[in-house]
């Protein structure tokens, strides 16, 4: 099932009795829950799907109102989910709708297997949809601010929270700030990617590499990144027609440099695995070697 089909159910006011909202994009799940809630008479948070099924199976003197039952991360539901249990849910007369929320890939896959007509994955949303939602949520926020937030946020949830903070602040002052200042204020600056680092190493630009490494999430993987850059450069030197993003930089390297840089990095990686080594110091040492016109071998370094 797709999120668009859920949207259609909401628009046509013809909601299914059972939904599973999976995936990592919590903001969009929250938004759709709000829309479903608006169509119901009541909303309840329940611990387990079983408890809701029990309510439905119990006879009531006063008829139950149409209610949205929200069940979050019910592991017992996942454990008990089978063809038989799925049929039990389908045959149960649910007054309103049950919406189960899951995030784990394993749980969502199991729901998709037994309840494919009710399960929807809501992962990352395109920035144009984020923009559309934000315009509807915050009509008073200027377009330029919404565009910045939608372009630089990783999820709708994050964008929603940033806009919420902005709408409580001084919008005139925010509009006078430049993009970088806004990104810094709301921590929307993007962390450096592996491809940025690879280009920095291949271009032998020490200052670029150092600025990337300072913000790099996984320092330990930098050793492997350097090794993989060396292999890519070796391939480019031997086969100049190979297709690679590092092609413009291959002419700055000789095979001997590639060999020495690889071996030095490998030695540092081995040391870091055997002894307690200052990983940052080792990385700085390796990046410093990029500044030599000919990368020295380990033996030359310690003569």
């Amino acid at each position: 099932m797709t999120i668009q089909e859920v949207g259609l159910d909401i628009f046509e006011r013809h909601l299914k009795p059972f939904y599973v909202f999976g995936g990592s994009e919590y903001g969009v799940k929250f938004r759709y829950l709000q829309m479903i809630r608006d169509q119901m008479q009541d909303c309840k948070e329940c611990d387990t799907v079983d408890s809701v099924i029990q309510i439905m199976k119990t006879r009531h003197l006063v008829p139950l109102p149409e209610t949205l039952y929200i069940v979050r991360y019910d592991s017992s539901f996942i454990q008990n989910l089978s063809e038989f249990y799925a049929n039990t849910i389908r045959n149960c007369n649910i007054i309103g709708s049950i919406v189960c929320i899951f995030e784990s890939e394993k749980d969502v896959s199991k729901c998709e297997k037994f309840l494919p007509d009710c399960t929807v994955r809501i992962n990352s949303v395109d920035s144009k949809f984020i923009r559309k939602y934000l315009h509807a949520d915050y009509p008073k926020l200027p377009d330029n601010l919404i565009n910045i937030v939608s372009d630089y946020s990783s999820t709708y949830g994050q964008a929603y929270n940033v806009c919420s903070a902005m709408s409580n602040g001084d919008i005139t002052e925010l509009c006078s700030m430049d993009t970088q200042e806004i990104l810094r204020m709301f921590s929307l600056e993007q962390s450096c990617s592996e491809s940025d680092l690879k280009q920095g190493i291949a271009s032998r630009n020490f200052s670029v590499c150092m600025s990337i490494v300072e913000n790099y999430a996984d320092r330990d993987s930098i050793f492997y990144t350097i090794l993989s850059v060396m292999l890519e450069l070796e391939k480019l030197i031997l086969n100049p027609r190979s297709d690679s993003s590092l092609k413009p930089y291959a002419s700055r390297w000789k095979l001997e440099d590639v060999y020495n840089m690889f071996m030095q990095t490998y030695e540092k990686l081995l040391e870091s695995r055997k002894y307690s080594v200052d990983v940052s110091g080792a990385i700085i040492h390796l990046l410093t070697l990029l500044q030599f016109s000919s990368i020295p071998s380990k033996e030359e370094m310690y003569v």
Partner: protein
Amino acid sequence: MNFECQADALLSLSEFAKEDQISHSTSPHSILIEGPSGCGKTYLASRYAKLLNCLDFVLVNPNVKEIRESIDTCYNTSTRLVLCIENLDSGAYAASYTLLKFLEEPSSNVYIVVTCRNKLNVPATICSRCVSISVPAPSHRDICEYAEIQDFNKFHRLKDSPIWKAVRTLKNVDTVLGLDDSKLNYLYSIRFPFTDCVSNVIWKLGHYEDNSTIDVSILLNYLISISPDRFTTRQLIECEKTISSGRIAPHAALAKFVLECKYGGS
């Protein structure tokens, strides 16, 4: 199956099991089995479970999450079981320390067997709390005997072929006997010197033509058997040692070996 390399270890385990029948409190609750890869450490642990008449034999990988979950299971179960943590020295130190507390205060119904390739890489605090048993590498006779039991015809077809020189452990026997002719021919086509770029060579050394992965142990042993010179053999041995320590990704160690073959050695 009784192999020469496992005889002494099996005798020790039988004695421990007999001691347990006589007096549960004096028999060892934790055993450390040390031996090279593919010598049958896990098999010995399962034999120990049978000697103790334990119905449950739980195999656990050396990571914190699995060890913690298995310890929780042990505390919640009353039946006798053998908990075997495989190759503890290839896991992170945190995995060893997760096990430490349980070794100090084990449940009375649980027998712990830890296996490792090199006891020096297991923290001393773990070694001191376990009774150690060493298992040597299987002898040529053990390997042939095992191979005959697994697949008599195929063993006799392959025993004089180049690939049989790559068989050093009981696990290698299973791997080689499981290879079809196309995979065997692919291995025979690997030759020194390497002329292609390093990344292509690593891909070819790591994958058969159908893109399934080549067992690293078989690959390295086979390359050692066809190595053209001492320098290459030395590099291969170093590569094998690094990979078996588990601390560096195998493709990085292989890349280093191929680079040394192509550009080193001068």
